[in-house]
């Protein structure tokens, strides 16, 4: 029995935390709100210098060939400071997709560039008024002499740091399929107002955009489902990092904030509130570690592990931020404190590439709770 990150992984955590502290913790996130988008480029190259963008890339593409567990400290520490950008989308969604389904050419074109920090990739999946698992897409991919041309509109695309390519999905004769489209071939991009102002989400329009097929046509949903196991495990780590910071700052505040001649942390109403946050944090961390372990080891229970983690951590993150606002009192409700930024990030992630309900359903199905087709007996009249 050894349910802990390795010493190397913890050392890596220390290094990333130092780097994030040197960057001023949430300063980068706040700089996005102020419109200073260029700060992301500096972070991206800094992370690449530390070798972070090379972690999930195979050695053949100049990566480190490491696994999901090695990303845990990375995303916990970037999540702790609400680092904006598309590290999650690139490293935990696009890379697993390219790793699993890319051709040799696609891999050497793109993965090498991701490893060195030259490139970032985002994923354009959602369409307006449709969920994560639509029956079909209104975006259409038509065959051309050299490949495909995609026409349609995608929304909720994370675009901070100017990704070079988008993994997108469109309808073909064979069904929903995945494509790679260069950012330079996007017809128009409109930034949408989002609840989390430290991120940038956009609506993208493609007009006959040249597109490379990724994987087999008609398999987009299955491919995304598989890659989302990586993404959700990483997302959980990011949220756990945020929760950890919330517990830490709330605890410290309760120790120094004096009311009725004593620190408020002495009052059980406050103390127990923080303890409840701590309980959720530890459960979230255990579930997220296990999810990453299951993904890395490709275990039979990986779907249950990842989706149960995602459903719990999403909710717990929102609750931790909400409770932290309450425990900070009046100051907690102001823009001055970071707490509100964590709440907005938690809400942003809640329904980003899935939801609590989706995850619970997937976990239940993976546990085999639902019989294939229960014949619904007519309800007796009595």
């Amino acid at each position, binding site marked *: 029995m050894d349910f802990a990150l390795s010493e190397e992984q913890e050392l890596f955590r220390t290094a990333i935390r130092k780097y994030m502290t040197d960057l001023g913790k949430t300063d980068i996130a706040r700089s996005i709100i102020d419109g200073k988008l260029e700060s992301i480029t500096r972070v991206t190259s800094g992370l690449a210098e530390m070798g972070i963008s090379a972690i999930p890339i195979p050695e053949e593409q100049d990566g480190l060939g490491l696994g999901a567990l090695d990303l845990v400290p990375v995303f916990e520490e970037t999540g702790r400071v609400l680092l904006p950008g598309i590290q999650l989308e690139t490293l935990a969604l696009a890379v697993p997709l390219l790793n699993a389904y890319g051709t040799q050419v696609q891999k050497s074109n793109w993965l090498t560039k991701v490893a060195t920090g030259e490139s970032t990739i985002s994923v354009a999946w959602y369409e307006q008024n449709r969920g994560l698992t639509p029956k079909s897409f209104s975006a259409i991919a038509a065959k051309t002499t050299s490949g495909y041309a995609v026409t349609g509109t995608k929304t909720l695309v994370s675009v901070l740091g100017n990704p070079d390519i988008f993994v997108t999905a469109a309808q073909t004769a064979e069904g929903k399929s995945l494509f790679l489209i260069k950012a330079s071939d996007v017809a128009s991009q409109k930034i949408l107002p989002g609840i989390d102002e430290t991120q940038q989400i956009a609506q993208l329009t493609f007009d006959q955009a040249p597109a490379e097929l990724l994987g087999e046509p008609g398999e987009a949903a299955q491919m995304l489902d598989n890659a989302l196991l990586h993404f959700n495990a990483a997302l959980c780590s990011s949220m756990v990092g945020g929760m950890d910071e919330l*517990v830490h700052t709330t605890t410290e505040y309760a120790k120094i904030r004096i009311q009725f001649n004593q620190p408020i942390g002495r009052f059980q109403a406050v103390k127990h509130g923080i303890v409840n946050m701590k309980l959720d944090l530890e*459960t979230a961390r255990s579930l997220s570690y296990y999810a990453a372990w299951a993904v890395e080891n490709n275990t039979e229970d990986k779907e249950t592990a990842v989706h149960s983690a995602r459903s719990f951590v999403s909710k717990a993150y929102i609750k931790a931020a909400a409770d932290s606002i309450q425990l900070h009192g009046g100051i907690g409700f102001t823009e001055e404190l970071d707490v509100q930024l964590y709440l907005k990030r938690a809400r942003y992630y809640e329904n980003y590439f899935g939801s609590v309900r989706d995850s619970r359903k997937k976990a239940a199905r993976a546990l085999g*709770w639902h019989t294939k087709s229960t014949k*619904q007996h007519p309800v007796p009249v009595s």
Partner: protein
Amino acid sequence: MNFTFTKKEEKFRGELRAWLETNLPTGWLEGDRQLPKDPQHYSQFLRDWQRALYEGGWAAIAWPKEYGGRDATLMEEIIYHQEMVRVQSPPLINYIGIHMVAPTLMQMGTDSQKDEFIEKILTGEQVWSQGYSEPSAGSDLSAIQTMAVKKDGKWVINGQKVWTSFAHLADRCFLLTKTEKSEGKHDGITVFLLDMHQPGVETVPIVQMDGHQEFNEVYLTDAIATDADVVGEVGKGWKVLIALMLHERSGIAAQVFTLEQQFDRVVDMAKSVQVCGVSLMEDPFVGDGLADLYTRINGAKLNYYRNITHTLKNGKPGPESSLDKLLVSELTKELFDFAMTIQGHAGILMAEDALFDSDMQGQYLASFGATIGGGTSEVQRNTIGERILGLPKDLGR
């Protein structure tokens, strides 16, 4: 990160499984797990079970070999609890004697105390209770008022204990008393190994809300103890108490695995029970709620694993066990609360008339004890807040 067991650990599990298969009470493995209803037979049944464990070498695996134990590792203890929960083994009547009293005596008892008590605890010949709580001292043990006064060379003890588990079946009591009125709350406490079979000791069972009787009130009226019954030094009982509490190192394991098993039973119920011809599981409310409970129960188990890893690496447990205790007991309550809700109107009936073939309603009622016994959830939250997060202590403590 590694969740596999070593070959040695698997061999240990295999041996225990094989032993359980041949030695559990007749019919037990097949699901006939009735314990005798009347106290006399109940006591005898459980004493026989402990005797069987003793003869098989499974009564106290964590004890040193010289005292009849196996010097079991922490992982072996965990496996032991897993296996015992798996077969839903009969309860250990001398839990207090084995897990708390005897290890404390090994550490700080006199030679004659060791000779007189340790083997009898192991064989089940002598059942122990612990006399801590009092009507005015529950979680705050330093507020006890039971007095022991030296008179003609003997200790005369007067007072009242409450929530004394197993007292109605016990031969001896690990009794906490005051031997002097003192300034410091932790001073003047003395621990006695009290003989329960004497006129000055009266035991009155307390009937719980689920109809069971596991606790008692114990009235002490001029009960007698001798100097030979004192553990450690007179007036230094607080030290003994702390030592005793540290001995229960793997107690939470049994609860973690029991909770997991109880959850599986609720899932079985949701799959097999039909309302209007549709299984409960097909109701989205049920599926969603169960997925949520599954996740949190699994999270509690994984927390436990993480804390065990920490203990294995550091050699001793930390305050994280409060976290495990709190989570597991709260989840036990929530699980049966949910089990009640999803049964609908059929959940009104109890026992053999219950909708499901197990007694969910009984377990629901019993679950209220989980967040009170062994330190209330409020006390656990204080411990976590103060010892893990470093928040200031409540005034007055």
